[in-house]
């Protein structure tokens, strides 16, 4: 682990010193140890702030979109140098979609890929830490490392080990693509992709009766407070103005918070993510109301694969799912 961290810092330093990149997007220690926070570094001196740990769960691709959308101030020459960015496999798939959809010119990003066999979920860590009776003040200067099948963390001389799959983020449990492809440089050994059962998250739902599913989602949608966090954190929600939200020339979906409007919002968003969502799970992570959005998108991911053999973010050369067809696509409409 730590040698990866060193390598990151080394590369970041080099890139910044040589001015190869405009700035560098990576992870830094969070306000508590359980989640790393994104950091943007433009001064080589600061590279030691960069870390690598099982807590680097965020998808940084969203910051690339911000960079691309940034309009230079009047009279100012736009700085078109690439941005250095750290990308796990899922982040990289997100970037690939951005490339595929011509949002991100390839030369604007310097991608440092890191094979990843799964990240820890902050909530789970915190919970376990609590159980282990670790004081909160201790938490901050705690280190979390990954060893074989355990996440160990040490503080105040205590060293605790936790079984990996107890702290692993849900999305990582279902991840079958551990190695980033579209990279300028890769750090660390590539890890073997696991043979896991896909789409377990929606299994239960699929087995429900229509009525139960309806009730299930009704409750879920009622919960939503329309804070738009899901939209904001999503690297693929890059529209200038969200059709679902905008009022001009017409308002498709009222901002007023109720079951029906929320449902409309989420279903519309889901339709926009078909063949695009790369299951980085950020939306679900940031949702203050704990809405299981992955249960929505995962279903569509499944259909896309089963009906059209399409996998989002697998290559920037692919024709987007809804911009392509074959004469013998499955046809249930007769």
């Amino acid at each position, binding site marked *: 682990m730590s040698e990866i961290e060193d390598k990151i810092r080394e590369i970041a330093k080099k890139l910044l010193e040589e001015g190869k990149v405009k700035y560098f997007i990576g992870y830094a220690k969070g306000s508590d140890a359980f989640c790393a926070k994104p950091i943007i570094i433009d001064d080589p001196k600061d590279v030691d702030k960069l870390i690598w740990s099982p807590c680097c769960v965020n998808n940084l691709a969203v910051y690339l979109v911000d960079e691309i959308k940034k309009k230079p101030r009047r009279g100012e020459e736009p700085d078109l140098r690439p941005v250095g960015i750290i990308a796990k496999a899922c982040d990289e798939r997100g970037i690939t979609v951005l490339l595929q959809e011509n949002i991100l010119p390839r030369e604007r990003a310097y991608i440092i890929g890191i094979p990843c066999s799964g990240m820890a979920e902050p909530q789970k860590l915190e919970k376990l830490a609590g159980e282990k009776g670790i004081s909160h003040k201790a938490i901050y200067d705690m280190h979390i490392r990954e060893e074989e099948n355990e996440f160990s963390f040490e503080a105040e001389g205590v060293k605790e080990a936790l079984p990996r799959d107890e702290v692993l983020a849900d999305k990582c449990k279902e991840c079958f693509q551990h190695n980033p492809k579209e990279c300028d440089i890769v750090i660390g050994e590539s890890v073997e992709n696991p043979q896991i059962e896909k789409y377990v998250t929606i299994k239960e739902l699929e087995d429900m009766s229509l009525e139960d*599913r309806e009730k299930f989602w009704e409750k879920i949608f009622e919960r939503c407070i329309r804070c738009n966090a899901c939209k904001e954190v999503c690297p693929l929600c890059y529209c200038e103005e969200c059709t679902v939200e905008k009022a001009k020339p017409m308002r498709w979906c009222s901002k007023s918070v109720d079951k029906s409007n929320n449902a409309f919002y989420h*279903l519309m968003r889901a*339709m926009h993510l078909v063949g695009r969502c790369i299951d980085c799970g950020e939306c679900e992570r940031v949702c203050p109301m704990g809405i299981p959005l992955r249960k929505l998108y995962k279903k569509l991911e499944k259909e896309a694969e089963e009906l059209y053999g399409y996998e989002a973010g697998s290559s920037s050369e692919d024709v987007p799912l809804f911009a392509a067809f074959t004469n013998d696509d499955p046809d249930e409409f007769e």
Partner: protein
Amino acid sequence: MLPTFEPKILAFLCNWCSYAGADLAGVSRFQYPPNVRIVRVMCSGRISPRFVLKSFQEGADGVLIAGCHPGDCHYSKGNYYTRRRLTVLGKLLEHVGLDPRRFKVKWISASEGGKFADVVKEITEDVKKLGPQNSLKRVDENE
């Protein structure tokens, strides 16, 4: 289920085949239930998922979409895109608990007046049985 329930069904038809088919049903005086309101679009490829979602939100008990048979599209390939988009939409709606019998997509050619009438009969009867659609229906009237 209410015995006297008269469902409201919205239909989006492509101008060249299905709308013509609906006209032919008229010319041939094929009788079908009066529950469907038809919206004409130039090509089924124009039909975005939001039309469907919106219809349900506004209170449609069923939505019917019809276009040229694959291969017959007046614009050569519009209906192929429709096929993908709406297949997935159907899966999504079913996933969130909307009864698939409320959302029908059919290929109806300009000479299939009979088929159009039959399709309308079918969806109307199905939706009658299912009763009013509330899972996506708007609650607030002050839009």
